C-alpha cells in the first residue's frame, strides 16, 4: 500500500477569502505613513520566516503556498528560514534575514510576544513585516505592517457552537489542549470556554489535558480519558492531529463512530475524510494558504494603497453536510 501523502490542491481550490476588512474598514496604513520607499518586489530580497518544521499539513501548505506564489510572481530572491519551534532561533533568523538585505518580511510567528529586537531593527531599516497565521503584539503600521490570518479565539467559539449543536447543549466535554504556553492553545481554549459559558451552561467541561498538538499524545490521553471518564459525550480537540489520535483511541476501545462527538480545528484532508467516515462531527478550518494574500497585500502596499491593520480571513467549516464535496479543498 502506497503512503497517502496529501498533495496540496492545485488551482484556486481552498484559496483564502478575506472576511475583514470589508469595504468600510477602519484605520489603514499607506507606504507614506509607514515611511518606507517603493521597491520592485521581483528583484528584491524577500524573507520568509517559518516557525515550525514543515512536518504537519498546516505548515507544509503554508510554506508551499508562500514559495509557490513567490515563484509565480517572479520573485527571484526568496529566503526561507525555519525556527524549528525554537523561539530564540526565530528571532535570530529574522534578524539575519534583515542582515541579508531583505526588503520585505513575511513571518509566521511562533509566539505573539517577544518581538521587540526584531521590530526595532526592521523599523530602523523601514522593512515592512507581514505576519501570517499568528499575530504579533505590537503596533500595526509602526512596528509592523499588518497581520493576515484567522481569529483563533473565534475559531474556539465556532468549535463550541458546533459542539453545542452536536450535544444539544448538554453533556460532558473533554478538551485536548494544544502545547502549553502557545498563544493558539490559549485563544482556542478561551474562545471555546467563553462560548460554552454564555450559550450552553448545561455543557460541563470535565477534563482538559494537553495533547501537545500531536496525534500520538492525543491518542494516549484519550485512552486514559475514556477509561476513567466513560460518561464523556464530546471531545474538543484544538487541532486535527489530536482529534485523529482520539479517533484511533476510540476505534481501539471498540467504540462506534459518532458515539462520542468530536469537534476540531484545522481542516486537514484526513480530518475532513474522518467526517465523511462519521468519526468526527465537524471541523473548523484554519486556512494556511497565505501566499496569494500576503503578496497581494505587499503589492498593494507598495503601490501606495492603504492596508488595514489586520486582515482576517474567513474560515470555512466542514461537517456532515459538506465534507464529502469539500474534500478537494482541504489541505
Amino acid at each position, binding site marked *: *500500500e*502506497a*503512503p*497517502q*501523502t496529501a498533495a496540496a490542491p492545485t488551482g484556486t481550490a481552498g484559496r483564502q477569502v478575506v472576511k475583514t476588512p470589508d469595504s468600510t474598514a477602519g484605520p489603514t496604513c499607506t507606504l507614506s505613513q509607514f515611511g518606507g520607499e517603493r521597491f520592485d518586489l521581483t528583484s528584491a530580497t524577500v524573507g520568509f520566516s517559518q516557525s515550525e*518544521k*514543515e*512536518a*504537519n*499539513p498546516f505548515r*507544509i501548505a503554508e510554506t508551499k503556498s508562500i514559495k509557490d506564489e513567490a515563484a509565480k510572481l517572479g520573485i527571484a530572491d526568496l529566503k526561507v528560514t525555519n525556527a524549528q519551534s525554537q523561539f530564540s532561533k526565530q528571532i535570530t533568523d529574522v534578524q539575519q534575514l534583515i542582515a541579508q538585505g531583505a526588503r520585505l518580511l513575511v513571518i509566521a510567528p511562533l509566539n505573539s510576544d517577544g518581538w521587540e529586537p526584531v521590530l526595532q531593527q526592521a523599523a530602523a531599516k523601514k522593512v515592512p513585516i507581514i505576519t501570517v497565521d499568528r499575530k504579533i503584539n505590537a503596533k500595526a503600521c509602526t512596528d509592523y505592517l499588518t497581520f493576515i490570518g484567522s481569529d483563533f479565539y473565534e475559531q474556539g467559539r465556532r468549535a463550541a457552537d458546533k459542539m453545542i449543536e452536536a450535544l444539544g447543549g448538554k453533556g460532558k466535554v473533554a478538551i485536548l489542549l494544544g502545547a*502549553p504556553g502557545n498563544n493558539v492553545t490559549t485563544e482556542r481554549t478561551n474562545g471555546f470556554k467563553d462560548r460554552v459559558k454564555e450559550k450552553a451552561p448545561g455543557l460541563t467541561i*470535565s*477534563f*482538559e*489535558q*494537553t495533547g*501537545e498538538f*500531536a*496525534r*500520538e*499524545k492525543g*491518542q*494516549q*490521553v484519550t*485512552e*486514559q*480519558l475514556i*477509561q*476513567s471518564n*466513560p460518561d464523556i459525550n464530546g471531545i474538543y480537540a484544538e487541532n486535527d*492531529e489530536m482529534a*485523529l*489520535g482520539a479517533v*484511533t483511541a476510540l*476505534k*481501539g*476501545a471498540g467504540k462506534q463512530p459518532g458515539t462520542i462527538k468530536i469537534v476540531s480545528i484545522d481542516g486537514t484532508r*484526513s480530518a475532513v475524510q474522518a467526517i465523511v467516515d462519521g468519526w468526527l462531527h465537524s471541523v473548523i478550518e484554519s486556512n494556511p494558504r497565505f501566499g496569494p494574500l500576503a503578496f497581494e497585500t505587499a503589492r498593494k502596499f507598495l503601490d501606495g494603497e492603504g492596508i488595514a491593520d489586520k486582515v482576517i480571513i474567513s474560515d470555512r467549516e466542514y461537517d456532515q453536510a459538506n465534507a464529502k464535496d469539500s474534500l478537494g479543498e482541504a489541505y
Partner: protein
Amino acid sequence: MGKWIRDYGVYAAVLTLLVFNVLFTPHFLDVANFRTQFVQVAPIVIVSLGMALVIGTQGIDLSVGSVMALAAALTALYLGYGAAVAIGVALIGGAVAGVAGGALVAYVGIQPIVATLALLVGVRGLANVLVPQLVEFRNPDLIALGSNALFGVPLVVIIAAVLTLLVAFLVRRTTFGRQVVAIGGNRAASELSGLPVKRVLVLVYVISGLLAALAGVLATARLQASDPTSLGMFIELSAITAVVVGGTPLSGGRVRVASTVMGALLMQLLSATLIKHNLPQSWTQMVQAVIILAAVYVTRERGKR
C-alpha cells in the same frame, strides 16, 4: 533493611501508587484500564531494556527517540512491500543507527552522551527527510500488530514481556551479559582480561537501536500512522528515568532488568494518575520531579556517585 529498600523500593513505590489509585481513581480496577496502561508502557519498556544494557556499560543512549522515528519512517516507506518487509527494514535501520553510535563510542572513543546526542539530532532529521509528514496507512497486518490481542492480552504487551524475559536471560545467563557488566565496572580490567570490549560495546548499542526501532514500529502500528516528527520525542528521558528509578546506577557495572520494567511502570502509572485526576500540566511536572527524586533516592547505590 536498607538493602531491601534499595532493591525493592521501586516495587513498593508501584504498590503505593496502585493502592492510591484503587482508593481514589474511579474505574481503576477495570480490566480495560490495566490493558491501557500496559499497552501504553510497552514501547517505553522495550526502549528501557536497551537503555539498561547501555547504562550497564557506563554509557547512555540519547538517540532512542530518533531511532523510533527513523523506524516509523522506514516502515511507512516500505509498507508497499508488505508489513514484514517494512518491519525488517525498520529494524535494520535501528541496527545501523546502533552500529554508528557503538562505533563512535567503542572505536573512536567518543563519550556516549555526545555520540548519541549527534545521532539524536541527525537521525530525527533523516527520518524527516525520508518521510516529511505524518502518513496514514491501512495495511491490515501492521494494524493488527498494533491492536490485536492473544487470549485477551494485546500483542504489543506480549512482545514487551517476551523481550523482557529475553534480555533478563541475556544479562543473567550469558557470557555477553557478564561481559556487559564487567565492562561497565572496569573497562581497562576487562580489556586486559581479554574481553572483546569493543565488540560488546557496539553490540550493546545495536541492541538498543534494534529495540528502539521495534518500539517505533509498535508505536506506529498502534497509531495507524507514521509520524517521524513527534514519535518518540523525549522518550530517552523516560527510559533513562525508568532505568535509574529501577536502581541501576548511571555509573555502570550493573543491569537490573525486572526493576527497570518496574521503573517504567512506575512512571506510566504516575502519568496516568495525574492525567486521570485532570491535574494541570504545571502540577503534573512538579509532581513527577518530586516522585523521580524520591524514587531515585530510596533506590540509590550507597557510597557510589
